[in-house]
């Protein structure tokens, strides 16, 4: 369970999120939608503990991300950022194993064929799937994904959505940021649109 309690986030003198409260239940998929610059990625980053809200609090179960050590936080939530850039030529398998066991998740996300390729040679969509796989491999109860469908083809989108549904059914709290252009959100249990 994620509890967002009256948070305000100000960045560069601009109020990005104002006095916003929300409860995100465990075992569900919640999608945050909005146009560019609406603050949806900022909200996700605040839940992940990357950003400290200017006012208000966010808790994951009973833990406050800004007051929790990085190591402990990694056992509570995992996150895949939108534009993952790889600078060193580790293989796909090595990168996913930095999160946890790789074989099953590589199979599910159709990455087994490129397991031994260097991540520096991947396309945008492949890099994004590797980042998603790494976050899922972490096996944290809360999974945060920033625009995971943005650079994916139809088959990959289907695979990712099916996997998120399976994880939610198994009890994970899945929070996904999606662009306002995303038409079909029937796979989401809850959609958050207005949080400014």
């Amino acid at each position, binding site marked *: 369970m994620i509890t967002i309690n009256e948070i305000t986030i100000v960045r560069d003198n601009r109020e990005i999120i104002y006095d916003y409260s929300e409860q995100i239940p465990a075992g569900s998929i919640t999608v945050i939608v909005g146009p560019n610059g609406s603050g949806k990625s900022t909200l996700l980053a605040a839940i992940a503990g990357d950003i400290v809200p200017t006012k208000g609090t966010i808790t994951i179960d009973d833990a406050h991300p800004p007051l929790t050590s*990085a*190591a402990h*936080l990694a056992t509570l939530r995992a996150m895949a*950022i939108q534009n993952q*850039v790889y*600078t*060193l030529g580790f293989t796909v398998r090595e990168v996913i194993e930095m999160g946890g066991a790789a074989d099953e998740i590589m199979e599910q996300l159709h990455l087994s064929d490129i397991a031994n390729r260097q991540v520096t040679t991947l396309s945008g969509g492949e890099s994004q799937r590797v980042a998603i796989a*790494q976050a899922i491999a972490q096996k944290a109860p809360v999974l945060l994904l920033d625009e995971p469908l943005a650079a994916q083809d139809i088959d990959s989108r289907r695979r990712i959505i099916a996997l998120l549904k399976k994880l939610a059914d198994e009890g994970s709290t899945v929070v996904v940021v999606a662009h306002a252009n995303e038409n079909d959100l029937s796979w989401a249990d809850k959609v958050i649109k207005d949080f400014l």
Partner: protein
Amino acid sequence: MKKYFPYISGVILFIFVLIALSVGATQIENFWSALAHPGSNEILWQIRIPRVAAAVLVGAALGIAGLMAQGACNNALAEPAILGTSAGASFGAVLAILLGVVQVGSIGAVICGALGALCATSLTFRLASLRSNLSSFALIIVGIAVSAIITAVVGLASTMVTRADARSISFWNFGSLSLITNNNVAALGSVLLIGAGLAWKVAPTLDLLSLGDATAFHLGVDTRKARMLALVALSILAGGAVSTVGTIAFLGLAAPHIARFIYGPAHRFLIIQSALIGATLLVAADTAARTIAAPNELPIGLVTSLIGAPILIVLVSMRNTIWKTP
């Protein structure tokens, strides 16, 4: 065959060490016999062995220091000379020597060099992140500027003071192994042991830092603490090397890159390989520096560049997917 691949660098270093011990301005008669009997030949045991041992230790220290700099900054251009680390080490050592607190090559000079290196590197990081998050561009530009200022101050100080034990501006800028003693070798060995130990501890975290600060944090890394540990290791290694033999160009940049191109990106394995390749490059460069124009010596920094740069260019041309700059 492939399982023996990692040992090849060790074998190559061993061969270069034997060549370095056997050649020089003076020919050593019955070389193998002299080598087998400690103290039997003064030139071999009092001059060449300490010098070649120092080349191995300094080359290894600078190789690992460069790896720590590149890993901590997640930047292919980072190295002790560019981040201000080498200049800071020179400054710390020169200041302490001029104040009469320590002597060149002593443990005291090494400690002052390491402290100077740490202060200068921290200053570079602090200034580079004043107005925004730390960017690679700001880090390199600020590092070059900090390095230039401190190098100028070291140059002024060593030019104005004529004491022989303070060493020359050429020594601090280009490095030299010609004045090495057995005591220096012991101090360098201690520095390498401590610095490499710290580097070994922080290495797996640097693998995660290569994914960027945000992803490393999501995976459980305290990025500030990891970076600080790597910078302390960098400062100890570069500080110890520079305060004893001056600034030796290019090794800190070339050795980790050459190791990475051959052996891949995992930092723990790269610590060993960067050390071996850095040591080999410096032993080869020092041997060339003291034999090409014997009995005169060439500045060693020039020779390390002449040997290391072509190897790096060939490797970059052959295989350039190991490091991708965003």
